[in-house]
C-alpha cells in the first residue's frame, strides 16, 4: 500500500517536472535590457575595461559580499574542525 502511494506521488512529481521543463520559456527570451545596458555603459560608469569585473564588484557587489561570507564561513568551519585539543597543546 505504501509503495503504491509512493509510486503514484513519484509519478505525479515527475509529470509536473516534465511539464514545467516543457512549458518554460526558451533560452534568452524575453530579451533582457540589462546586458545591453551593461555592455554600453560599464566603461563610462565604472572606468573598468574588464566588464566582468565591473559586474562582479560594482553592479552586483552585494553578491560578492555574500560569496566572501561563504568563504569566511567555510574557513571558520575547517579551522574549528581541525583545532588543537587541550591535552595536545599542554604537551
Amino acid at each position, binding site marked *: 500500500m505504501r509503495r503504491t502511494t509512493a509510486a503514484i506521488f513519484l509519478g505525479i512529481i515527475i509529470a509536473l517536472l516534465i511539464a514545467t521543463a516543457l512549458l518554460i520559456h526558451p533560452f534568452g527570451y524575453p530579451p533582457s535590457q540589462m546586458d545591453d545596458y551593461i555592455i554600453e555603459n560599464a566603461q563610462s560608469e565604472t572606468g573598468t575595461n574588464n566588464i566582468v569585473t565591473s559586474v562582479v*564588484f560594482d553592479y552586483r557587489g552585494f553578491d560578492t559580499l555574500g560569496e566572501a561570507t561563504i568563504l569566511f564561513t567555510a574557513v571558520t568551519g575547517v579551522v574549528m574542525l581541525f583545532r588543537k585539543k587541550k591535552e595536545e597543546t599542554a604537551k
Partner: protein
Amino acid sequence: MMMSKIVRTISNLLLPFILTYGIYVILHGHLTPGGGFQGGAVFASGIALFIVAFGSYNIQKNLKEHHLSILESSGALLFIGLAFGGIAIVFFYNFLVGSPILGHIPPSGSNPGDIWTGGVIPLMSIAVGLKVIAGLSVIVLVMALASSKTEIEE
C-alpha cells in the same frame, strides 16, 4: 614530512613565478581576465605546493594560522569599508570614479587599458584577494597539519 630534494628544488624554482602571477592577476583584475578570487586561488595553490614540498611542520614556523586569520579579517574589513564608502548614494556605489585617485575613465571601445582606472574596483579586488589567499592557505595548512599529526601518532 618532506618530499625529495628534486621536488624541493623545482618548487623553489617555480614558486616565485606562481606567486607573482597570482599577484598580477589580482592587481590587473579590472583590465585582464581574473580578479580577486582567481588570483587569490593561484597564490594559494602556490602556497599549497610549498606545503606539500616542504612539509607542514617546517612551514608552520613561518606561516602562523593567527597571522593568516588577521590577514583574512583585514581583507573582509577593507571590502566592507569600501562598500560603505559609497553609502552616501547607495551601498557599493563606486565613489572614486572621476576623482584624482584611480578615477581616470578610459575611452569606450576596446583599448589596452590603464592601471590607474576603475575607482574602488582595484581596491576591492585587492581586498578580496587578501581574503582568498589567507582563507585557502589556512584551509590547506590546517588540513596538512592535522593529517601529518595522525601519521605521526600511527
